[in-house]
């Protein structure tokens, strides 16, 4: 395996769910790359496609009702887009593991914690002596050894999330996907879990793909961030650039709304309008109906993701028109 290879690459993905009566284009055009050792964030509101993206990266899309129409998914360089469930099984846990928002629906309610961690160790670390490894893992996520004897319902939300992490780490993943891991937790617990994630990442040389609707969480934990809207990745770059020098009007709106500071009219900055339907694939920028700074091109065709500054990509005609010089199209 090449050290410089990306752990995960999702390129131009178009993913549809087909129900009995309707079709949902949950991911329409998304590109996400996670390099080795990198911490990458995906932000977006409900329905933007960020969780579908996480599931696609784990081969956990519901069979029969979901289909990848176009685009590619690469795990450590190998194209896994058309993998069968059986072949996906060989990738889950190692190299990619996932922790979800709600540990209670993941953990078995009638099996003690220690046994659930041991299961993951036996599966992914055959030959290793199980009991000491389980102790190590609990230790790693800073749970007391006595937690092994407990059942999920006896633990607090933060402790359950640590158990999830211990199970995931038992697989020795090179990429950990965390889908809203702290959303259901109190702020103080959230801070502890994020700190733990950062420590583990450094210690184990692991990449992290952190999915959250909370820009503050991504700001504190991620090197790079992708912003999603209506199934499209609309902006990406170093977290500091995306949040401080946002190029897409939606990103700006999101950052302003997250600040919760009163404006001159004594009101909070909100994004007017509602999210668009995903029942069709958008031919124009999906943010257009809510956008206050559209230009002629916006009415004409869909913008492409385009690099505006080093590593800072945006899918917006207006932003691209504003900075043509940096792209080498002559001075403004």
């Amino acid at each position, binding site marked *: 395996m090449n050290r410089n290879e990306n752990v995960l690459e999702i390129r131009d993905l178009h993913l549809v769910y087909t129900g009995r009566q309707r079709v949902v284009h949950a991911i329409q055009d998304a590109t996400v790359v996670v390099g080795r050792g990198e911490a990458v964030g995906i932000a977006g509101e*409900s329905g933007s496609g960020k969780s579908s993206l996480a599931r696609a990266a784990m081969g956990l899309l519901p069979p029969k009702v979901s289909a990848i129409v176009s685009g590619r998914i690469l795990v450590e360089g190998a194209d896994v887009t058309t993998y069968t469930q059986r072949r996906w099984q060989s990738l889950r846990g190692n190299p990619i593991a996932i922790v979800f928002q709600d540990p209670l629906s993941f953990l078995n309610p009638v099996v003690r914690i220690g046994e659930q961690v041991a299961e993951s160790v036996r599966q992914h670390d055959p030959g290793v002596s199980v009991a000491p490894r389980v102790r190590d893992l609990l230790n790693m996520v800073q749970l007391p050894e006595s937690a092994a004897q407990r059942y999920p319902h006896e633990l607090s939300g933060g402790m359950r999330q640590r158990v999830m992490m211990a199970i995931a780490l038992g697989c020795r993943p090179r990429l950990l996907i965390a889908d809203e891991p702290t959303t259901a937790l109190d702020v103080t617990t959230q*801070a502890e879990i994020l700190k733990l994630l950062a420590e583990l990442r450094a210690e184990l040389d692991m990449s992290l793909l952190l999915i959250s609707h909370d820009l503050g*969480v991504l700001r504190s934990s991620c090197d790079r961030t992708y912003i999603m809207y209506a199934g499209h990745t609309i902006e990406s770059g170093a977290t500091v650039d995306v949040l401080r020098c946002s190029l897409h009007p939606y990103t700006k709106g999101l950052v302003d709304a997250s*600040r919760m500071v009163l404006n001159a009219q004594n009101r*909070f900055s909100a*994004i007017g309008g509602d999210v668009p339907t995903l029942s069709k694939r958008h031919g124009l920028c999906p943010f257009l109906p809510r956008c206050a700074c559209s230009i002629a091109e916006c009415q004409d065709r869909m913008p492409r993701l385009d690099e505006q500054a080093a590593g800072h990509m945006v899918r917006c005609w207006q932003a691209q028109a504003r900075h043509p010089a940096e792209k080498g199209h002559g001075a403004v």
Partner: protein
Amino acid sequence: MALFELMQISKSFRQRGAAPFQALADVSVHIDAGECVAIVGESGSGKSTLARVALRLLDPDCGDVLLDGESILGMSEEKWNRLRLTVQPVFQDPSSAFNPRRTVQSSLEQAIGQCVPKEPAPRERALELLSSVELRPAEDFLQRYPHQLSGGQRQRLGIARALATRPRLIVADEPLSGADVSIRAQVLNLLLDLRERQNIAILMITHDMLVARALADRVVVMHRGRVVEQGRTRDIMDAPQDPYTQRLLNAVLSVDADI
């Protein structure tokens, strides 16, 4: 005299095979007319129990709840049924707070009927309520069912229903948690409007310090069933005295902190 007063409220819950769990210990909070008070704290701090006591959905072990100086705990069911219209709840999960088989119009007219049983023009009043929470054009919403609304629209409908009885106090239990940031701003702006135009007082239960800072005149910090600190919002945010309040504030992740 305060509009609403929770006085030295204590409440414990029995637990099987363990000592009773003290959810509230000697909690006192008052709200003046038109004022917004935020109760902040983490899960298990007792803030939702306090909201239920305030709405007389739960009897405290001791203490009293006063509306305009009169105890609501001692009053007859009949009298409370009249007075409760002035103290209206808004819940966290608007989808479970509405009858899924009633249209928006039917849900609102039911609430309007409680306040004015013979309201001559309930439909017009429903339209007025929908417009006041910026569900426009209001006519388009009347025949919809709750599941046909987005999360933000449903929460605004929840507020419209609370307004149907022309309340003087809204008790909002985590009305914004689980909402996306753009929706959160919409709902906060709506609450600001209500205070300015109708002078409605708000008791806001939240775990989010940013929400408290954004909206409240005063903040009450709860921890393990006790009030650990209360005061003017700016004082609490700028100079928290209690170590727990400091810990809460330090844990807030803002978009702007240095990266």
